[in-house]
């Protein structure tokens, strides 16, 4: 707990209303979206101007106070949970201005607390497109998206957050401003620190400004669904679509557990007997869309899909995506706790992954619904449980252990888009190597000699 004199300094710097140190306020920043234990910070700080981040960091550095940066707190791996009761949480949500949208040079400059969907909407209003669309985009912030390298449904064709970060400004652990990247498409000046910061989970600095790439929006799109009697046929169809050089902007998968739960809740007429449901959208120039939609439809038909349904208008397209939007809510409503994983495998391993999840569910007696991004092998096995039941939750933890072990065996990765945080750090060596962890620690020590930046996350300081 920082001494009251330090809190006084924070209040002088930010104004008393922006220093939250009452117990109920500190409790409000003890968690994020991950199913992990709370850690109550010493205070939460709300800078209103980007420069104040540097001033906060300098004060923390001087007094050796650990810092955890938090956007909207939608992190699914615990990255926004404070490290210790000495920590302060730095809240970026009041830094929420879009500073520039440049339609000639196709970039935008934003503050870290801008909400992803609000930014995408502003870009759209200017006739431009910001593709990364993490599931939490209505709430998540750009700063958090960068720090976690957030993905989304459009990853296969458009890439993820890291593909849109052109440049950054951030404060180091002592509060000095660091600049990297540029407003230009190309930039080979200096080290690619923006690359280092993207996915850094708060370990190397505190982002205060981002230059993001924008692209022209697609002019047309077409969506369809296809039901398969077995997962392998669905996965083969996915592989065939990509082999025929069609890159759908979204290529989503729902397993039979998910399909049935969505149908229980929403009754939108999904095929309950399907082992796998694919939801596909192609976008681009109208002629290309027409052509690619035909190719996809043919592949689905030849691949043995039953009940292919192609949306004829926006209303029908909306209905298709409603099924996907309902997936998480339908699963979440079933039991009190949902552990949403994002183990990711090479596309070709999706059938193996789906059977692996089925085996694990059976072995540990758990209810697991799986949906996710078939196009990039990023599935979301969601374990439905009640964390208040210690016996059941112990089985959940064993199941996750096995899931990660087998993911790595398949050549996959622990996290497609949720980050490592504290939730997955113990398996990191399994996927990488001891030397990798040492290298990460060396980087940490160099960039943050006092070990103050989110020190217990990813590779603990």
């Amino acid at each position: 707990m920082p001494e009251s004199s330090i809190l006084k300094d924070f209040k002088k710097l930010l104004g008393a209303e922006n220093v939250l140190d009452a117990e109920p306020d500190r409790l409000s920043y003890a968690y994020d979206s991950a199913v992990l234990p709370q850690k109550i910070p010493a205070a939460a700080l709300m800078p209103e101007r980007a420069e104040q981040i540097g001033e906060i960091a300098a004060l923390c550095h001087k007094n050796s106070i650990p810092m955890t940066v938090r956007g909207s707190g939608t992190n699914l791996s615990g990255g926004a949970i404070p490290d210790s009761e000495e920590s302060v949480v730095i809240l970026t949500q009041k830094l929420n201005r879009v500073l520039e949208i440049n339609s000639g040079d196709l970039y935008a400059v934003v503050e870290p607390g801008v909400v992803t969907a609000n930014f995408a909407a502003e870009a759209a209003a200017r006739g431009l497109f910001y593709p990364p669309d993490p599931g939490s985009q209505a709430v998540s912030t750009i700063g958090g998206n960068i720090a976690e390298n957030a993905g989304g449904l459009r990853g296969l064709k458009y890439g993820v957050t890291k593909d849109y970060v052109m440049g950054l400004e951030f404060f180091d652990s002592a509060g000095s401003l660091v600049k990297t990247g540029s407003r230009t498409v190309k930039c080979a000046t200096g080290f690619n620190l923006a690359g280092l910061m993207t996915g850094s989970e708060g370990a190397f600095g505190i982002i205060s400004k981002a230059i993001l790439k924008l692209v022209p929006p697609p002019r047309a799109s077409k969506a369809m669904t296809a039901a398969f009697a077995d997962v392998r046929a669905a996965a083969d169809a996915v592989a065939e679509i990509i082999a025929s050089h069609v890159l759908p902007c979204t290529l989503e998968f729902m397993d039979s557990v998910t399909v049935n739960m969505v149908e229980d809740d929403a009754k939108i007429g999904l095929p309950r007997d399907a082992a796998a449901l694919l939801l596909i959208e192609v976008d681009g120039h109208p002629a290309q869309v027409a052509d690619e939609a035909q190719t996809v439809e043919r592949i689905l038909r030849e691949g043995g899909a039953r009940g292919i349904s192609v949306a004829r208008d926006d209303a029908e397209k909306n209905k298709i995506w409603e099924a996907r939007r309902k997936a998480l809510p339908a699963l979440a409503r079933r039991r009190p706790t949902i552990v949403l994983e994002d183990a990711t495998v090479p596309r070709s391993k999706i059938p193996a992954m789906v059977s692996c999840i089925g085996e694990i569910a059976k072995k540990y007696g758990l209810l697991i619904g799986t949906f996710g991004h078939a196009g990039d092998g990023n599935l979301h096995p969601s374990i439905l449980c009640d964390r208040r039941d210690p016996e059941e939750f112990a089985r959940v933890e064993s199941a996750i252990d096995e899931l990660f072990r087998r993911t790595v065996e398949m050549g996959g990765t622990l996290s497609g888009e949720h980050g490592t945080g504290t939730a997955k750090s113990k398996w990191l060596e399994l996927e990488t190597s001891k030397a990798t962890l040492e290298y990460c620690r060396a980087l940490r020590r160099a960039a943050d000699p006092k070990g103050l930046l989110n020190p217990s996350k990813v590779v603990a300081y």
Partner: protein
Amino acid sequence: MDRLAKLAEETAKLDDRLSACMKCGTCQSVCPVFAESMRESDVARGKLSLLSDLAGKITSDAEGVRERLDRCLLCGSCQAACPSGVDILGAFLKAREISAKYLGLSPVKKLIFRAMLCNPKLFSLLAEVSAPFRGLVMRRQNDAPKTMRSPLLSPLIGDRRLPELPPETARQKFGDYDSPAGKSGIKVLFFAGCMGDKVYPNVTEACLKIFRVRGVGVRMPSSLACCGIPALASGDADSFKKMLSHNLSKLEGEKFDYAVTACASCTETIEKFWPQYAEGRQKEQAERIAAKTLDISAFVADVLGVEPAKAPAERREKVTYHDSCHLAKSLGVRIQPRKLIEANPGCELVEMREPDRCCGCGGSFTLTHYGLSKKIGGRKRDNIAASGAETVACGCPACMMQISNMLALNGDAVKVEHVAEIYARSLGD
């Protein structure tokens, strides 16, 4: 066991509702209070988590938790958007009840609920005898929404512009009202509510005209009390149950096909909370009434039927519609009020941005948190002004009061009317 331990124990009974929150934070994207404050403790995720902490004795600062719990409009935006389907409002109402039980109720609220709202006769008498003296405390303002301000009461109500109060209440004007069913063959119970009786009797009058012209019989007993929501929202469940029991006893033996109100909050309360809180042999009666309860625009559009105006007038008044939270988010009544506006040939419906964004009233929230309420209302006012409408229509008198205040404070020349008034005007005598 001490007070706090008991409070924690009772809060722990909410655990099933609290644990259902998956902490996704979606509530941040819709919460009107959070939009102004950016504080986690202002959204449902934060509040539910604080209640868990209180139940789990992680904090003993029950007053602090209550203070944060009270920074809520009960608008239900979070619940409508919640992916996990958490019964947020139910949990909050219960939590407020527990706080009131163990930490007490403010003296002003106690006086209002227990002395006034639980005694409908006294409440009416106060409104009636005070009318001639209003000039002493109220100053008429020449703003477009007819409002008054009160320098004398400003320590209590700030710079608030109140609606110009009518010379007589609906009860005085219409008495114990009973008219037989006409050509529709339908008989309704009309629940005017406190606001429809004492502040906006013109809305009640408009509804009575609609019923008369459309051949609907009306029963409007003069002995009814407040629906009870102000007490329930403040955690005073005892007063709520008293008003409820009074109302149900006065309605015993009354025969009607539908219970209709022109107040979103009354409708929601009668439909959702009366059956939940009614006790003993009154439970079944409350359930029966709840099943027949409809908002006035839902009754007109869905039961009687309404057509868009056939020959629109040459010069049409631009009318925008504000979706009251308790109508749109709780009861799903969104299209019907718009149909009523479009049935008036003299009106052109123009949508504002964020029509279902809360106006910031939240019942007593606007009294206890006026600063926040004004900020939230400011966004509504901006959206109304930007729509270019000459009139803003509402389905709830509480929203009307808040919106007229916001418009008057900004000197906007926009009228505030109830949807029923707009529709009633289009009907001949």
